[in-house]
C-alpha cells in the first residue's frame, strides 16, 4: 500500500528479537500467527450467524498486472475521497462531522481559552507582585481568579484532553470515523456555547466571583445576588454535557470499531487512558450536574437543597462537587498519562516495560480516584473514621502512579534516547509531577491539611500536579503529533527554548508558593500588607509567571511558523509504532484506504511487508468496520452518518434552554419544545445515508480486479 514505509526483511526481525527492542524503522517481516488465525474463528462465527460456508479468505495468486492494480487502487481512493469529502462553504463548515476537523476545532478553541486563562493568571500575578497593590480592585480580582480556575478546568483541560482522544482514538484503533460523529459535533457546539457564555458574562462585569468550585452559602441566593453565579452554574451544565458526549463517543469507538486483530490486550496505552477517562466522566460528571442544577434551582426557583433554614445542607454541596471534583483531577491527568507512553516508546525506541501493569494502574487510578473526594473537605465536620479512610485512600493512589512512573523509568533506562522536544517535556513531567505528588501525600494527612488548608501551599500543590501532570505532557503531545495534524514539524530549536522557559518559569512561579503557604498566606486574597514579609517570594513568583508565559509565546510563534514553513514531516517522522503513523500527514478524510489487521502490540514495528488488510467495505458509502468488543472479530459493515446541520440546531436549542433559563424558568418549557423539534428534524431530516439507494452494494470485486481476484497484491 502507499502508506508503507521502506521495508526491511527478516534481518531486522532477528535483530529485534535479539535486542528485545524494536528499532523504529524495522518491520517484523512476518504475518503473525495470530492474525492468520484470526480469519478462521471469524469464518466459523460467520457460518454460525450468517448461514452456510464461504471459503475462508486465503492467499491467492492475482492475475492482473501491477499497472492495472495500481490504477484500480487509485480509482478506489478517489472514490473514497469523494464519498468522505468534507462539505464546503460556511454551511458546510457548520455541518462537518469529520472527527479530525472537530478535534482540531476543540484543540484550537481550548487553546484560546488556555491563553485567556493565562492572561487572567498574569493579571493576578501583577496584582500580587507587590504588597498593597491596587492594580485590580477586590471585586475584579474575585472575578479574575474564579474565571481563571473555571476556564482552566472546564474550558481548557477537560476539552483538550477529550479532543486529542477524538482525533487519535479512531486513527489508533483503525476506524474511519468515531462511532457517533453527529453526537460528537453536537458536543463541540455545546462546549463552545458554554465558553462564550462565561466570557460574555466576564466582559460585561458579570463574571462569576465565588471561586471555581462556588461553595454555598457564598454562592447561594443570599450572598451572591445578581446573575454572576448563575452564569457559572449554566456554564458547568454545558461543559459537562459536552464531556459526557465525548466520553460516549470515545467508548463507543474503542469498544466497537477496533481493527481486526486489536483484541483487548493489544489496545494501545493512549486508547486505554482515554477509555478509563471516559468511564470516569460517565460516573463523575452527573454529580456536578446535580450540584450545579441544585445551586441554580436554589437561586432561581427557591428550592432549599443548600439552605440550612429549611433543612438543606451546605456540606451536601461540597460532597456533590468533590465527588465530581476529585475524579476531575484524574479526568485531566489520565489522558496525559496516555500521551506519555507512546512518546516514551517512540523516543526510547523500545517496547514499553510492563504493558499490563501500566494498564492495570490506569484502571486502578480510575477506581481509587472515586474514593478521595473527602480529602478536600478535611476542614469540615467529617467523622474521624471518615477522615482516616480518605487519608488512607489518598495515600493509596500514589501506588498506581508510582508503578507507572517506575515502568516508564525502566523503559527509558539504558535505552538510546532520541532526545527530541516531546521526550524533553515528558522528562520535565517526571520532575514536576513527582514533586506535586509528594505534597499530595503531605496534604492527605489531616493534621497537616488543617494547618495549610486554603493557603498558597495548596495552590502550589495543585499547579504542580495539574501543570506538571497534564500541561507538560500535553505540550509534549503537541510537538509529537503536530506533524500528523499539519504535515509539518515544529522547530526543535524553538522547542528547546519553549521547554526550558516553561520549566524554569513554572518552578519560579510555583515553588515559592509552598513557602508562602507555610508562612500563612491564604489563597484568594487580592493583596497583603508590606509587613507580612511575603513581598519577595511573591515578586519572584510574578517574575516566573512572565518567564512561563514567554515559553507559551514561543510555542505559539513556533506553531504559526511551522504551519506555514515547517519541515515537511512525511507519514512517520519519529518512527512511531501505532496505526496513526501508517497514514499520510494530515490523514485523508477516510483515514484508512483498507482497514488494517493488527498483528501485535506495535502494529507498525511488527507489520509484514504485505500485511493482511480488510477488503470489502463500500467506497461509495461511509462504511467502517464494526468488530466485537473483546477480540475485535469483524461483525458489521456499519454506515456512519455524514454531515448534518441538526447537531448545531439542537445545540442552539440547548443553549436557549439554559441561557434564557437564567432569567426565567419558562425557558425550560420553550427549550424542551425547541429541543424536541430539532431532535425530530435530526431523526427525519436529511437521511442522506442508509435509505438513499447506494450506487454500489459494497462489492469490490469488479473494481479491484475484473478477473475476480479478491486478494490483490501489494501496490
Amino acid at each position: 500500500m502507499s502508506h508503507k514505509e521502506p521495508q526491511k526483511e527478516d534481518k531486522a526481525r532477528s535483530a529485534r528479537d535479539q535486542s528485545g527492542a524494536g528499532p523504529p524503522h524495522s518491520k517484523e517481516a512476518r504475518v503473525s500467527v495470530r492474525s492468520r488465525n484470526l480469519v478462521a474463528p471469524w469464518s466459523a462465527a460467520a457460518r454460525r450467524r450468517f448461514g452456510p460456508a464461504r471459503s475462508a479468505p486465503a492467499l491467492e495468486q492475482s492475475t492482473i498486472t501491477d499497472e492495472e492494480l495500481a490504477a484500480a487502487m487509485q480509482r478506489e481512493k478517489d472514490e473514497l475521497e469523494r464519498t468522505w469529502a468534507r462539505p464546503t462553504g460556511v454551511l458546510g463548515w457548520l455541518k462537518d462531522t469529520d472527527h479530525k476537523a472537530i478535534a482540531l476545532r476543540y484543540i484550537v478553541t481550548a487553546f484560546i481559552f488556555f491563553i485567556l486563562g493565562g492572561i487572567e493568571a498574569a493579571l493576578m500575578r501583577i496584582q500580587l507582585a507587590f504588597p498593597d497593590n491596587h492594580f485590580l480592585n477586590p471585586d475584579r480580582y474575585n472575578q479574575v481568579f474564579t474565571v481563571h480556575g473555571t476556564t482552566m478546568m472546564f474550558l481548557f483541560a477537560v476539552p483538550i484532553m477529550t479532543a486529542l482522544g477524538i482525533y487519535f482514538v479512531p486513527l489508533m484503533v483503525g476506524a474511519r470515523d468515531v462511532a457517533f460523529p453527529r453526537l460528537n459535533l453536537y458536543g463541540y457546539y455545546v462546549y463552545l456555547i458554554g465558553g462564550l457564555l462565561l466570557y460574555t458574562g466576564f466582559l460585561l462585569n458579570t463574571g462569576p466571583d465565588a471561586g471555581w468550585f462556588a461553595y454555598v452559602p457564598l454562592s447561594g441566593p443570599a450572598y451572591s445576588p445578581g446573575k454572576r453565579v448563575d452564569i457559572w452554574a449554566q456554564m458547568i451544565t454545558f461543559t459537562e454535557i459536552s464531556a459526557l458526549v465525548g466520553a460516549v463517543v470515545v467508548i463507543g469507538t474503542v469498544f466497537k470499531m477496533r481493527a481486526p486483530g486489536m483484541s483487548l490486550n493489544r489496545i494501545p496505552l493512549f486508547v486505554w487512558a482515554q477509555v478509563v477517562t471516559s468511564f470516569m466522566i460517565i460516573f463523575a460528571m452527573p454529580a456536578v450536574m446535580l450540584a450545579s442544577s441544585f445551586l441554580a434551582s436554589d437561586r432561581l426557583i427557591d428550592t432549599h437543597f443548600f439552605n440550612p433554614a429549611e433543612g438543606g445542607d451546605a456540606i451536601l454541596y461540597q460532597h456533590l462537587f468533590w465527588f465530581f471534583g476529585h475524579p476531575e483531577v484524574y479526568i485531566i491527568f489520565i489522558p496525559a498519562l496516555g500521551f506519555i507512553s507512546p512518546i516514551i516508546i517512540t523516543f526510547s525506541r523500545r517496547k514499553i516495560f510492563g504493558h499490563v501493569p501500566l494498564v492495570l494502574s490506569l484502571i486502578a487510578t480510575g477506581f481509587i480516584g472515586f474514593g478521595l473526594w473527602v480529602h478536600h473537605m478535611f476542614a469540615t465536620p467529617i467523622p474521624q473514621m471518615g477522615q482516616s479512610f480518605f487519608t488512607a485512600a489518598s495515600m493509596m493512589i500514589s501506588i498506581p502512579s508510582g508503578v507507572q512512573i517506575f515502568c516508564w523509568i525502566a523503559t527509558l533506562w539504558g535505552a538510546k534516547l532520541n532526545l527530541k522536544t516531546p521526550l524533553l517535556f515528558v522528562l520535565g513531567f517526571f520532575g514536576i509531577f513527582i514533586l506535586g505528588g509528594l505534597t499530595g501525600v503531605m496534604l492527605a494527612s489531616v493534621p497537616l491539611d488543617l494547618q495549610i488548608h486554603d493557603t498558597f501551599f495548596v495552590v502550589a500543590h495543585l499547579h504542580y500536579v495539574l501543570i506538571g501532570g497534564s500541561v507538560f505532557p500535553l505540550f509534549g503531545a503537541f510537538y509529537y503529533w503536530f506533524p500528523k495534524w499539519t504535515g509539518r514539524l515544529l522547530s526543535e530549536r524553538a522547542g528547546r527554548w519553549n521547554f526550558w522557559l516553561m520549566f524554569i518559569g513554572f518552578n519560579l512561579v510555583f515553588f515559592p508558593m509552598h513557602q508562602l503557604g507555610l508562612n500563612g498566606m491564604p489563597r484568594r486574597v487580592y493583596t497583603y500588607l508590606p509587613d507580612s514579609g511575603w513581598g519577595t517570594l511573591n515578586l519572584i513568583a510574578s517574575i516566573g509567571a512572565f518567564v512561563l508565559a514567554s515559553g507559551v509565546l514561543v510555542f505559539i510563534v513556533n506553531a504559526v511558523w511551522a504551519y506555514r514553513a515547517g519541515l515537511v514531516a512525511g507519514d512517520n517522522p519519529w518512527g512511531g509504532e501505532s496505526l496513526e503513523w501508517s497514514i499520510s500527514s494530515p490523514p485523508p478524510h477516510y483515514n484508512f484506504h483498507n482497514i488494517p489487521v493488527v498483528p501485535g502490540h506495535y502494529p507498525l514495528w511488527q507489520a509484514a511487508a504485505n500485511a493482511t488488510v480488510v477488503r470489502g467495505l463500500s467506497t461509495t458509502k461511509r462504511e467502517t468496520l464494526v468488530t466485537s468488543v473483546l477480540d475485535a472479530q469483524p461483525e458489521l459493515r456499519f454506515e456512519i452518518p455524514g454531515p448534518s446541520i441538526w447537531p448545531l440546531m439542537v445545540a442552539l436549542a440547548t443553549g436557549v434552554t439554559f441561557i434564557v433559563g437564567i432569567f426565567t424558568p419558562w425557558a425550560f418549557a420553550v427549550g424542551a419544545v425547541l429541543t424536541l423539534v430539532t431532535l425530530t428534524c435530526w431523526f427525519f431530516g436529511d437521511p442522506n445515508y442508509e435509505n438513499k439507494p447506494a450506487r454500489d452494494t459494497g462489492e469490490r470485486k469488479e473494481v479491484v480486479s475484473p478477473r475476480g481476484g479478491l486478494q490483490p497484491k501489494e501496490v
Partner: protein
Amino acid sequence: MNTRAVIDVSELPHHDFDTYDPVWWGNNLLLAIETSMFAILIATYFYLRQNFDLWPPPVAQLTATLRPLPQLLYGTFNTILLVLSCGPMILTDLAARRGNRAVCQIGLIICVLCGLTALVLRSLEYSAMYFRWDSNAYGSAVWFLLGMHHLHLLVLTSESVLLLVWILRREFDMKHRVDIVTVAVYWYWVVAIWIVLYAIIYFTPRLG
C-alpha cells in the same frame, strides 16, 4: 508476483441487534450516566433526611399536626401501568427482532398510549402533593426526583412516537428495527428506575 492475505467483509450485514450495534452501546452508556445521576440523587434524598426529625416534615394545621406522607394513589397507578406496559414492549421488542411490522406498530401504539397516560398521571401527582419544591428541602428533593423521572418518561415517549411514525410512514428497515430493540432497553430501564423510586419516595418514610 506479490500476494497478500485479506479479510473479506463484503458479505457482513449492515446491522444486527444488541451488542453488535454501536447504537445499543451508545444507549446503554447514556443509561449508565443517568443511572449514576439517579444514584446520586437518591443519596441526596437520604443525606437531607438526616437533617429532619420527621420525614416528611409535619405540616402545622389549625387543629392538629398532620404527618403528610406522600399519597399512594397516583404513584401506585403509575407503577402498575408502567409495569404492565413492559408487556407490549416485550412483544414489540421480539417482533422487531423477527421483522414483524404489524406487531411492532400495534405494540408501539399501545406503549405510546401507556407513556402518555403515565405522563398525565405524573402531572396529577404534583398537584396532590402536600409540599411545593420551595416549601423545604424535603419538597425540593422529592420534586427533583419526580421531575427527573418525568423528564425521562417524556424523552422515552417522544422517542417511541418518532419511531412509530417512522415505521408507519417509512420503511421497516433493519436500522430502525435495531432502534426499536434499543428503545425497548430504555423503556425497561425507565420502568425499573421507577420501581426503585416508588419504593423510596412512598415507602421509606412509612417505614419510620
